[in-house]
């Protein structure tokens, strides 16, 4: 047995640990966290936060009371040995007290339950307003709705402006009907509007999560899950796949880019343009890149105007690879993990070249050197030579128009 004086230090150390822990919890509100769940930027996320905050406060009080009680008793009633014949009162029970602390917590839980169910009903309610958008010059009324398709290890976003999108109309997630706009990695939405999401998957279960805008919803193969989000203001909101989905789960990210009405309309107009195929010219890198693209990439990737006629999904398990028609209009690529543009606004040739050169190094995949019968998943290493890589990069830079400076700035997370 240690002497009493020495032992009494321990509870204090314990108290210190507790204070430290509370400090940790509070510092969850750090401002540089792009995925912070406690910093809502959309209505639903805020409703969730408003529910969590009081419960965290209640939990904090209970924690302090319980741990405080433990520490208090430990300091007050501690003895070093049982030499004494003096026993404490041998209290065996106290029904009043015990019924009290059965009912007490139950009452607290009833309060929490009422708060929870109220919020639950609100966040599961949809109230999308129609917005006017112009598609190919024709104005149409669109209830903002985006089909979100998860795949190993990237997200596809499909926009159907003129049709009423539901599970029946969409049919098979592996073979969705042609959409007005198909993009990948970044979902563009009008700011201030509630956007309905129809979430599905082409292979395994993924989970779509933009913490600043709403909680997450699993993307389940063979099923169209309904979800929603909204962003108060224009900006770039980060997300990460949160259901473990295999090798590159950690590198399956996405962003929601919220734009004002004019910006959103401009984005639609740009996406509806079919990029011109460069004229054949052996001396022009872009032209050579287009040829290389058609030779190397078109069995999986689609570029409108290049292989829209022959493209029938890809020979990979996931069924398709990102639509690259407007590649350069997105500020990230490779499943939302690499920036398309450098901080100075120039095209990020280095990362894109490396992605084409060694995709498996940038992002783990199962696309090369597979045993018989095992289907490839992810971007394969095609063994491209440096010249081809350089040509492809030059070509890809021409696909789509560069995003706004604000978007590019907001994409930088450092």
């Amino acid at each position, binding site marked *: 047995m240690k002497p009493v004086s020495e032992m009494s230090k321990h509870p204090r150390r314990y108290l210190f640990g507790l204070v430290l822990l509370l400090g940790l919890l509070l510092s969850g509100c750090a401002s540089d966290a792009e995925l912070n769940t406690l910093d809502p930027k959309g209505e639903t996320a805020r409703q969730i936060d408003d529910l969590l905050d009081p419960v965290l406060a209640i939990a904090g009080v209970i924690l302090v009371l319980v741990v405080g009680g433990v520490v208090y008793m*430990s300091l007050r*009633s*501690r003895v070093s040995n049982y030499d004494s014949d003096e*026993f404490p009162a*041998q*209290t065996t*029970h106290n029904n009043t007290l015990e019924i009290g602390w059965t009912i007490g917590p139950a009452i607290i839980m009833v309060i929490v339950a009422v708060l929870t169910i109220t919020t*639950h009903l609100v966040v599961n309610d949809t109230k999308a307003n129609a917005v006017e958008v112009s598609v190919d010059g024709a104005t149409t009324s669109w209830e903002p709705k985006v089909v979100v398709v998860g795949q190993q290890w990237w997200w596809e976003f499909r926009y159907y402006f003129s049709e009423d999108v539901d599970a029946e109309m969409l049919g098979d997630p592996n073979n969705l009907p042609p959409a007005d706009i198909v993009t990948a990695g970044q979902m563009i939405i009008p700011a201030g509007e509630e956007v309905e999401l129809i979430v599905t998957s082409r292979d395994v279960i993924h989970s779509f999560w933009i913490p600043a805008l709403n909680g997450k919803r699993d993307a389940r193969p063979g099923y169209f899950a309904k979800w929603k989000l909204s962003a108060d203001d224009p900006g770039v909101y980060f997300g990460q796949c*949160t259901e473990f989905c295999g*090798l590159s789960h950690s590198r399956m990210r996405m962003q929601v880019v919220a734009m004002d009405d004019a910006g959103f309309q401009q984005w639609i107009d740009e996406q509806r343009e079919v990029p011109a195929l460069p004229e054949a010219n052996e001396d022009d890198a872009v032209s050579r890149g287009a040829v290389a693209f058609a030779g190397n990439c078109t069995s999986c990737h689609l570029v409108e105007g290049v292989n829209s006629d022959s493209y029938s999904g890809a020979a990979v398990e996931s069924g398709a690879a990102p639509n690259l028609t407007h590649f350069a209009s997105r500020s990230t690529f490779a499943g939302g993990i690499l920036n398309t543009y450098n901080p100075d606004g120039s095209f990020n040739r280095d990362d894109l070249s490396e992605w084409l050169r060694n995709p498996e190094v940038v992002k783990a995949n199962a696309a090369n050197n597979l045993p018989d019968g095992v289907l490839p998943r992810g971007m394969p290493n095609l063994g491209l030579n440096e010249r081809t890589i350089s040509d492809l990069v030059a070509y890809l830079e021409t696909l789509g128009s560069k995003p706004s400076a604000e978007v590019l700035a907001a994409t930088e997370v450092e």
Partner: protein
Amino acid sequence: MAITEEPLALTSGETFAERPLGVLTRPQPKGTWRDWLSSVDHKKIGIMYGVAAMFFFLVGGAEALLIRTQLAFPDQGFLSAEVYNQIFTMHGVTMIFLFVMPLAAAFANYLIPLQIGARDVAFPRLNALSFWVWLSGAIFLNTSWIVGGGGADCGWFCYAPNSGVTFSPTNGVDFYAIGLLIAGIASLVSAVNLIVTVLNMRAPGMTLFRMPVLTWMLLVTQFLLAFALPVITVALFLLIFDRLFDSQFFDPAAGADPLLWQHLFWIFGHPEVYIIILPSFGIISEVIPAFSRKPIFGYTFMVFSGIAIGFMGWGVWAHHMFVSGIGPISVAAFSLATMFIAVPTGVKILNWLATMWGGQLRFTTAMLFAVGTVAMFTIGGLSGVTHSLAPADTQQTDTYYIVAHFHYVIFGGGVLGLFAGIYFWWPKVFGHFLNEKRGRLHFWSMLVGFNLTFGPMHVLGLQGMSRRIDTYSAGFGFEFWNLVSTIGSYLLGLSVLYFLYNVWRSKKEAVNLPAPGPDPWDARSLEWSVPSPTPEHNFDVIPVIESQDDWWFRKYSIEDDGSVVRVASVEEAAQKGDATGVHLPSPSFWPLVLAVGLPLIGYGLIFNLWLCVIGGLLTGGAMYAWALEPVDDPDAGHGHDDHGHDDHGDDDHGDDGHGDDDDPVAVAADSEGEA
């Protein structure tokens, strides 16, 4: 005769040679390592569970440290994504199925018969079978590193269809499924065995509501196991049929629903949480009274809240699926059900505090761990309440906030409690103390290491760090707390090594220290009424129980004015452990042989069906030999003739308990005449 000590020879002078045993004889104890392989003694089996569990704790801990090393800094390539996914999967599987569950089984095996006043469990050979089958499953599972192309890479929850051959083409998932099936057989057999033991083999006067809270919690645990395991068994069979025989249970392209796996898994998986935590609750319900010098406060409430947790644990599984798309009404219902589990849990915490209240708190290492368990579990319980808010859970689930939560529950509430039990019962099991000074350092380093490791994960999760990611990028605010967490994990690892050092040194030092005696802690339950270490036959005479905490009342009585008066010293009240002629079930090698056959069947299913034949012959032969093995009871008057048929080895559950004739209830009933 399973008795090694000389004084326990048969009084009548009978020998087994006189009995016509035919070709099959049962092994005799020789005092060598073979005794362990053939032992059917619940205490030896308990110790083996404990040792094996600690081994796998080191394995799982090493995996944890690899995970934390990879995550110490952003964008690290210390482990590839492929290896990382295998490591975190095997870390979870190892810690749950190969560490916490068997360590709890160690306590259950060792203590249940002692606490209810029995000489062994109801089916000693089945008990040995449980251990060996579990161990063979555990080893099978880990051989996937060597022969399976790596560990399973689907997460311990192994969601379909990511667990299918298409997405996980190595054999890792096969090893996962078959290994857990084998381990499941063990737990199921053990659960049935221990339930029968508690229900049937209590000493005279030991009514259910006189049993120690630990026995109660272990009983609830065994019921949870008995009913949860068949469900995961179904799920694992469907998975293995899909992977090996191309059935269509989880292929969405064929119209199957991946949610089927999730439901089956979590109907098992949530009770599993209570399977992990309730033994620890039981342990600290023994430790806290002993070191508060008071009886447990509100015994009845403690028992019924444990039962309530056990029941409610069945109605909350879908809270793991709030974002799966199960529909808003289901979500609301499961959200509410989950919240109200907080009520019985809160009762337990408050009753522990009330036990301490006004007591004389003696902070031995066991008490430190017990009190630490209460505090740490409270943190885990409270964060659990925040998950029950379904809308908030859509933000929290699959983030590090969840990782923090369940480590506070499983490690803070479960493992710390098990360590309390280790320090508390060590003298009873091994006859010497673990050094208290080193124990305290072990406790404080573990507590600090634990909080440094898992405390920051609350922050990381709320900052949006996803679970199961092999790396993260700089710039999301994850760097600092990940580094803190990694440093904490190294401290935690060191504290475990220090515990092992304490075990080793304490053993060495014990020769120079006084023996602990039967009841070193002045405790309350029956195991403290017998010498330390426990004699092979447990009780010289089966005690007749007159009250709850009967052992304590043999030492003390409470006067009318409430004061406590000693009526007998421990030496006077305790049994001497020198009884002779107590007959105990004989050892048998067949449980071990049977258990060896099962992984062979597993390898056979994966690699070559001929191995199945060999494994099947081994298992079937062992069952046959088991059934024909003579019951060596020298007392033919038992009426326990071996009826020679074999109904063991039901396809999935291995054994239904029928046909095991080592029935020590006969022994337990010995003293009834004296009652």
